[in-house]
């Protein structure tokens, strides 16, 4: 039994469980209703892809961590609280393979719940917006489906980071009640807390550029990357909302750091 075999066993268990759960379908319907509602309220779909992203960005920024926490907060604590982790201890199942399998399996469910409604919104834009939006732009100043695909990719990355954070909180929680509490705290940290920390650091005058500071919080790193690589591409002369390398590094650090923390918590 290799570490890879153990990973696939746990991954298959998670995917199979998700495929049988009606709650994921319900979550997907809720996400669909919210993003379509936000887009229609702003009339973005009739104007094009970039206006649609503008309409839904704020909603998605809150929705993604909320759904990620809903999918991930019980990921480990259920096995821990019910004694299954102790049983796993007697198997050749390393903590890294267990956390990796749980995370990857739930990531499949999470990405399905988030990206299918957003992709459907993209199709909706394609069928309702003006003909100029069908251009596959290679230069600034042109709306394009490629920009929407970038938005989807960035949203997927943000979702994976938020899920890693939720899994880490689930791994350290110890009980389901504490997991719910930590999930709420984690949601606040991802959605607002880190941003507030950044603003606090700004006012404290710590001598770091604003575009780098903004990259430290996962939400503002995601928001900044969407501005830099989706929205400002279509508007000439605007950029430097956030440092792209710093934002990418920040998201990687939040994601990998969370998975490392989860692995260490399970390996204790």
């Amino acid at each position: 039994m290799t570490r890879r075999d153990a990973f696939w066993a746990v991954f298959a268990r998670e995917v199979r469980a998700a495929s049988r759960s009606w709650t994921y379908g319900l979550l997907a319907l809720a996400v669909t209703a919210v993003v379509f509602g936000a887009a229609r309220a702003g009339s973005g779909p009739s104007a094009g892809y970039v206006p649609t992203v503008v309409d839904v960005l704020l909603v998605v920024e809150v929705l993604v961590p909320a759904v990620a926490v809903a999918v991930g907060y019980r990921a480990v604590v259920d096995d821990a609280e019910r004694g299954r982790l102790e049983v796993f201890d007697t198997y050749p199942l390393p903590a890294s393979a267990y956390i990796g399998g749980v995370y990857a399996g739930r990531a499949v469910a999470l990405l399905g719940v988030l990206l299918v409604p957003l992709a459907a919104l993209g199709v909706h834009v394609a069928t309702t917006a003006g003909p100029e939006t069908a251009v596959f732009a290679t230069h600034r100043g042109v709306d394009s489906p490629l920009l929407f695909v970038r938005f989807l990719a960035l949203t997927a990355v943000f979702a994976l980071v938020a899920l890693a954070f939720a899994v880490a909180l689930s791994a350290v929680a110890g009980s389901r009640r504490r997991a719910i509490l930590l999930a709420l705290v984690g949601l606040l940290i991802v959605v607002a807390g880190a941003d507030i920390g950044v603003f606090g650091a700004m006012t404290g005058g710590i001598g770091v550029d604003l575009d780098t500071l903004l990259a430290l919080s996962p939400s503002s790193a995601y928001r900044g990357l969407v501005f830099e690589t989706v929205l400002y591409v279509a508007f000439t002369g605007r950029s430097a909302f956030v440092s792209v390398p710093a934002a990418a590094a920040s998201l990687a650090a939040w994601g990998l750091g969370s998975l490392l923390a989860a692995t260490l918590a399970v390996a204790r």
Partner: protein
Amino acid sequence: MTDAPSLQATAVTRTFGDVTALSEVSVSVPAGEVVALIGPNGSGKTTLLRVLAGVLEPTAGSVDYAGPPADRTIGYLPQEPTFRPGFTALETAGFYARLVDDDPAALLDRVGLDAVADRRVDALSGGMTRLLGIAQSLAGDPPVLALDEPGSGLDPGMSELVFDLVADLAAPGHAVVVSSHDLLAVERIADRIVVLDRGTVVARGSPAELRERTGGPLHETFRSLVGDEAFGAVRTREGERE
């Protein structure tokens, strides 16, 4: 390293904060034998079994396994086995079997659950869930088995079946340690009995040796060792709880 598997706990102490659940407990579980842990509620049986199974670190002392190398050296049945809801018994056994390259259908067959292989685990009775737990503990054919109250909550027929199965497990040379409140079953299948009270070993020996202490059945010896007041009470160390 010897081919005959055995487990040896030496001077094991386990505390939880200021509570001492086990104090200087030494137990040997040799190959081909069933060692039974008995004692009043709170005497430290489950804690000792978890330490022996390797799922709980002792605060002091050590647990050493000797025997052939194996993917899974110790099979463990927790006191209350639970399984991920939404899966059938066969799928559940399949998950554990996959971790050690075992055959899930054979595992279910071994504990008599083959007839309900397609039933969801949340629809299994308490006894069937425990049997599925035993099937899980057997996955990978571990040389040592640690079973926490395998007969708990079962009807007499199923309890007898489970204890017969436990006795059969030791026959081919496995080392089996089991905790139980069912003194009749323990007397029937155990090669050695370890009596725990307040986290310490108060007696040990074969069923016949323990019976000789009072000349009566095992439960009389048990009463004489732990005292009548232990019945219906939780027994922990003075001022402490397990």
